């Protein structure tokens, strides 16, 4: 019966709230503490102090209408759904009091009353269920899981996959790309006339005796593919330096080695150097 008392308290509070506003102009009141007309009906039903299954719906309707009247008498405006319920209950009351019409297309007053009683019982059942649920031993409030769990450590192992096709196409593509690239990109090694001129100029003054031109250039002749380029450029450069009067050249016969030495003072010109 504690529940009933609590509900009555709420009703009293509702009235108190209403009365506090006194003679103020009408204002909308969501009947304090009640969650809609069904909740209010349920609270009123509990004041009958009988099992909800045996409640008098007629008496309940009258209680509700009287309650609403009292609030309206205080010149307060009620939320619309309370008024809708009041209108419906007034209709229900009339259906219950008047003899049943022969017309059975509409539900009888008894059926309407039963439907309302069912809704009240169902709401009450859900309220009780909610309370039982809330009072269960709840995880993290009443019962506890392991406070210091030991997690499963997952080690990731990579398993690589590839198909033979992947392998072969990767190989073929790379080899092919390289094969073609080598043909087009490889630069030709060239030793220019300027390179040769600069190289020879550096040794002038240090070749007093006849020296084969080829040995002077040994340092530059190492890459075999550059031999022809170096020989040609050096020959050209030596002719130029001879013309400039810096060196002397000597060759005993065509295709024999070419000798080179620093330009000698006129007196010391060697008689054997025939082809100057």
């Amino acid at each position, binding site marked *: 019966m504690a529940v009933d008392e609590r509900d009555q308290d709420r009703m009293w509070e509702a009235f108190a709230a209403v009365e506090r506003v006194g003679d103020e102009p009408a204002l909308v009141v969501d009947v304090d503490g009640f*969650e*809609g*007309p*069904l*909740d209010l009906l349920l609270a009123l039903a509990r004041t009958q102090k009988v099992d909800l299954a045996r409640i008098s719906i007629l008496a309940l309707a009258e209680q509700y209408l009287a309650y609403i009247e009292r609030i309206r008498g205080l010149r307060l405006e009620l939320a619309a*759904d309370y008024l809708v319920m009041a209108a419906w209950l007034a209709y229900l009351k009339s259906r219950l009091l008047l003899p049943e019409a022969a017309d059975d297309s509409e539900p009888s007053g008894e*059926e309407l009353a*039963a*439907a309302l009683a*069912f*809704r009240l*019982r*169902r*709401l009450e*059942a*859900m*309220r*009780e*269920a*909610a309370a*039982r*649920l*809330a009072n*269960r*031993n*709840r*995880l*993290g*409030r*009443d*019962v*506890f*899981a*392991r*406070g210091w*769990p*030991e*997690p*499963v450590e997952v080690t990731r192992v990579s398993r690589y996959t590839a198909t033979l096709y992947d392998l072969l196409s990767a190989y073929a593509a790379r080899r092919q790309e390289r094969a073609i690239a080598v043909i087009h990109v490889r630069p030709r090694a060239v030793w220019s006339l300027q390179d040769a001129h600069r190289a020879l100029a550096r040794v002038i003054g240090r070749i007093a005796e006849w020296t084969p031109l080829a040995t002077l250039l040994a340092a530059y002749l190492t890459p075999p593919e550059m031999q022809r380029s170096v020989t040609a450029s050096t020959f050209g450069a030596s002719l130029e330096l001879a013309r400039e009067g810096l060196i002397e050249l000597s060759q005993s016969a065509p295709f024999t080695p070419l000798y080179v030495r620093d330009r000698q003072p006129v007196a010391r010109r060697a008689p054997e150097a025939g082809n100057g």
Partner: protein
Amino acid sequence: MANANAAIAIAVDNDAVAGDRSMEDRRQSRRMVEALLFASAAPLAADEIAARLPPGTDIAGLLRELQGLYADRGVNLVQVAGKWSFRTAGDLSFLLAREAVEQRRLSRPALETLAIIAYHQPVTRAEIEEIRGVTTSRGTLDVLLEAGWIRMRGRRRVPGRPVTYGTTEAFLSHFGLDSVSDLPGVDELKAAGLLDSRVPADFAIPEPGGGDQLAPDEDPLDGDDGSQTTEDR
């Protein structure tokens, strides 16, 4: 004759050894189940446990054995949401109050809505409102979705295709229930016809479908429902 006796003796010995070994195997398997459940903060399904033990292990039997072993201890083995978990005994909650994590108190409307969803699932918002006799404020369902206790299950196959709500595994785990058929008083309520969403009550009551299967009049959520942040949290 002496030979025959010796043969029998050997046979008996072998049996004894085999028996010892299988006893020892069982004890070892039970230790493994115990260790797995103890180590995990979350409930484990029997098949999750089975996957970590030698094939053919009698998991169900070992779980029952452990449950018995821990029945009057400070820690119990309980079945929640169809899974198994060690939890402190309910009667010791007074002792562990300090351990409790601050939980947001559910408002009365939220708790009532949760109960209606639990007992009536799958249920639409309109049906919840019909039962409570008031409109449900947007926040009420949000709070429950956010807590991870309810989820959108599907859509009712009626005009407007309203979303249906149901409870989650986290709900069962939090309230220590093995399944929705273990909700307190659910059988009595069902028998009294109070779990029927329609008035009046005197016709066959559909089985409250707490499972993941959709009800006959329920459609799966559309693809784009899945991206809604409020879904299934």
